[in-house]
């Protein structure tokens, strides 16, 4: 019971509260309008595919200029000079501290981490609302990489498919002519068999078939469906996977215990090496070719297919994503589109970058063909159709949260199987068990 006599609330008090609220609202709206005139962008210098890159700023500047021309009064602000190696940490730190840019590039290895913490905006609503935006103009594997559990968190900017490097000179010396585009594991094995030999007669093999051929290449070309999109289910114990591991064993057996590395390929002692398009585009033309592949003619073809699979590649993609905390959704979406949907800017990927444009029209178009052929044909030329065909048939790389850790577990497991000669089925069952318990954790 309150017997205390209460004062009636004064008018002056109410007026004070009202005045305070009005001041706060004014300050907030001023702040809001000031910030509305700028949009921030996060990017890094250097190539996401770990190849030398000198022209990052050209493309960024052109895109920013184009965007600003299309949106008078809006400024794009960015911090320059962040190296690719520091970029993940820089963005993560900015996300945690709440001052991340409105729009930023996301490296393939960071994508699942950022999307999994709700740091990236779900873009489906903006995509649906934008009538001019047609997602079918992207390579399916590029666009799918930005999708997690049915939600689009990133828009592809630049993709690199995996492919097979070929030492043309070595094969010519061994009397092997053209390799068909739909070549099989059988063809691959036979050629490797044929080229593995001791060329200087010292009793030790010094010419080999392949280096760096891993379970991932074998899985994708034999139709192994190891994970679902969310990375919650893992199935390694399948006939396709067993065949793939058996094949790796066979290929590995050819080296007879010698360790074959990428350096051996560079020195012209290895016939095949799986690599990325970016490697090809960087090292094939001048000046980088002088540094690396001087003694032989480099070519690239599709990966060989297994009995149950296709000549497919995995494709890694650099994405552009929107900060989930941005208050400039519309502008941010326009900026993303300038980078990822503008034919002119996307064409510049072939001029300034090492990967491939994610837009089918750009990669297919005559002008691009000209420019890519100019670049690619300096040393004997390369069929542009091959790239488009590889990209058309590529599959997106895994993009669930613990991709890196899971890949390392499978790497180690299959290494064990190959080294110790374990039965492939039993070995895969053990790996599957380990991966499942890790994913369920």
């Amino acid at each position, binding site marked *: *019971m309150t017997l205390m006599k209460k004062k*009636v609330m004064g008018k002056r008090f109410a007026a004070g509260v009202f005045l305070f609220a009005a001041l706060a609202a004014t300050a907030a709206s001023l702040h809001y309008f000031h910030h509305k005139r700028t949009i921030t962008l996060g990017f890094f210098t250097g190539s996401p595919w770990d190849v030398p890159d000198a022209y990052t700023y050209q493309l960024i500047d052109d895109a920013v200029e184009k965007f600003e021309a299309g949106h008078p009064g809006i400024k794009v602000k960015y911090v320059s000079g962040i190296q690719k190696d520091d970029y993940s940490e820089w963005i*993560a*730190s900015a*996300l*945690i*501290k709440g001052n991340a840019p409105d729009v930023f590039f996301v490296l393939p290895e960071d994508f699942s981490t950022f999307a999994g*913490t*709700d*740091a990236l905006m779900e873009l489906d609503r903006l995509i649906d609302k934008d009538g001019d935006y047609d997602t079918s103009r992207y390579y399916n594997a590029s666009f799918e990489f930005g999708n997690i559990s049915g939600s689009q968190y990133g828009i592809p900017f630049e993709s690199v498919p995996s492919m097979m490097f070929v030492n043309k000179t070595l094969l010519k010396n061994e009397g092997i002519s053209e390799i068909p585009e739909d070549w099989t594991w059988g063809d691959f094995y036979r050629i490797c068999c044929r080229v593995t030999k001791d060329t200087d007669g010292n009793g030790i093999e010094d010419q080999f078939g392949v280096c760096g051929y891993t379970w991932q290449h074998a899985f994708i070309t034999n139709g192994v469906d190891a994970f679902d999109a969310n990375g919650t289910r893992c199935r390694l114990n399948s006939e396709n996977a067993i065949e793939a591991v058996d094949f790796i064993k066979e290929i590995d057996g050819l080296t007879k215990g010698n360790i074959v590395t990428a350096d051996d390929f560079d020195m012209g002692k290895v016939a095949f090496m799986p690599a990325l398009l970016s490697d090809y585009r960087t090292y094939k033309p001048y000046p980088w070719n002088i540094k690396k592949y001087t003694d032989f003619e480099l070519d690239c073809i599709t990966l060989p297919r297994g009995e149950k699979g296709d000549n497919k590649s995995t494709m890694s993609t650099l994405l552009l994503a929107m900060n989930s905390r941005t208050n400039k959704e519309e502008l941010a979406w326009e900026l993303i589109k300038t980078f990822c949907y503008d034919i002119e800017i996307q064409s510049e990927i072939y001029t300034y970058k090492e990967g491939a444009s994610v837009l089918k029209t750009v990669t297919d178009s005559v002008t691009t063909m000209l420019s890519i052929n100019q670049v690619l044909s300096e040393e004997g030329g390369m069929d542009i159709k091959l790239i488009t065909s590889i990209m058309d048939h590529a599959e997106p790389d895994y993009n669930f949260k613990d991709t890196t850790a899971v890949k390392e577990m499978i790497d180690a497991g299959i290494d064990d199987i190959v080294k110790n000669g374990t039965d492939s089925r039993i070995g895969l069952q053990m790996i599957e068990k380990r991966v499942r318990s890790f994913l369920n954790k």
Partner: protein
Amino acid sequence: MDTSALKNSTLSFMKSFNFITVLYISVVSAVTIIKIGNSGGAVMFLKKVNTLPPVPEKMFFISFSFFVLLMVLMYMHDNYEIKYPWCIIVMEFICTVSVIVALQVNYNGLILLFVAHIMKYFEGSSKKLLPLILGSTFFLIFDFNACSNIFKITSFETYTEYYIGTVAAILILIKNLFTTLNIILFIVYTILHLREQMDEKDEINSLNERLQAANRELENYAAESEKMAQTRERNRLAREIHDTLGHTLTGIIAGIDAATAVADVSPEMLKRYLSLVSEVARQGMTDVRRSVNELRPDALEQRDLLSAIHKMISQMSAASKANITLDNGAGRLSFGEDEEEVIYRIIQESITNSIRHGKADTVRIQMTREYNIVTITIKDNGIGAPKIEPGFGLTHMKERLSMLGGEIHVDGSDGFCVVAKIPIRWGTEND
């Protein structure tokens, strides 16, 4: 120190304690988030959590300002008269929840402070338990473990993992200490609150006993007072008989004696005396009738006050040929029985005085009302009286009025002017 004061200081202590806790959690969380961001462990941290931590400055600012707002609301609630108390309780609840949400449900003790604060506004056995039930429900709902299954939130412990062993342990220890102490304070507050209510009940019981004793005394007094009223009424009757019948009979006796003396001498004189006696007897008869009427104002029992007064006025003006007017400015006249009788009697007595003693031929009655005071003014154009004599029924009127807490003024300098003020009891007005 009594329970109530102890209770209030517990609540104040709880408030400052909660303030420290909210400040501690928000500052430690915010500083740790900034440190994680600057230390090169940001990617590792993001791999560990399933949602971004709140923006550190924002978290601190929001939790701090909503807490301050909550304190202001509580102060206003306690010290100002609020038109819609439910409104302010809802606003306080929103502030409480906002602080908790801003701290990612890492501290829910604020719910206890909220419950402790509103407890005193829920009285009555049916509502008393409401804040406790609601409070414990929300306390359970806003539990970190319960919420983390539904919403993506990051625990205080996850932040502290940034620090090396001992520091992390100390930080968590301090938080747990604060949380536990807050619960203890809440329990102490609840016990004090219940004790205060029990004390209150005891006080009410003792007050009740005193009230009953007073009631008994009052009943005795009423009985005594009734007896006194009877005595007074008897006295009045005696006076009335003496005033009317006494005079008349004296006159008649004197007249008859005179008639007897002259009976043999002059039949003329005899006739004159007898007619005088007859006149005196008739006058006496009229007086007796009037007295009897005064004793039994059954007019009041048959109709309402206003028409009873009108009837009385018309009878009296017919009997006396005087012009009597009533000007009622008091609206509907509907009061308690005793109040109505007093009003009736005062008007009756005053008119009688005016006619009998003042020889007036015009009497004006005015009734006005201001709040609960009814004022009756009776003025005539008669001769009045330089000195007011007790025989005019004034004493009687005064006695009756004083029993109702009213007063009366009589002035006889220019005709009679009687002004009576009667306070009407609230609630006795019958609609």
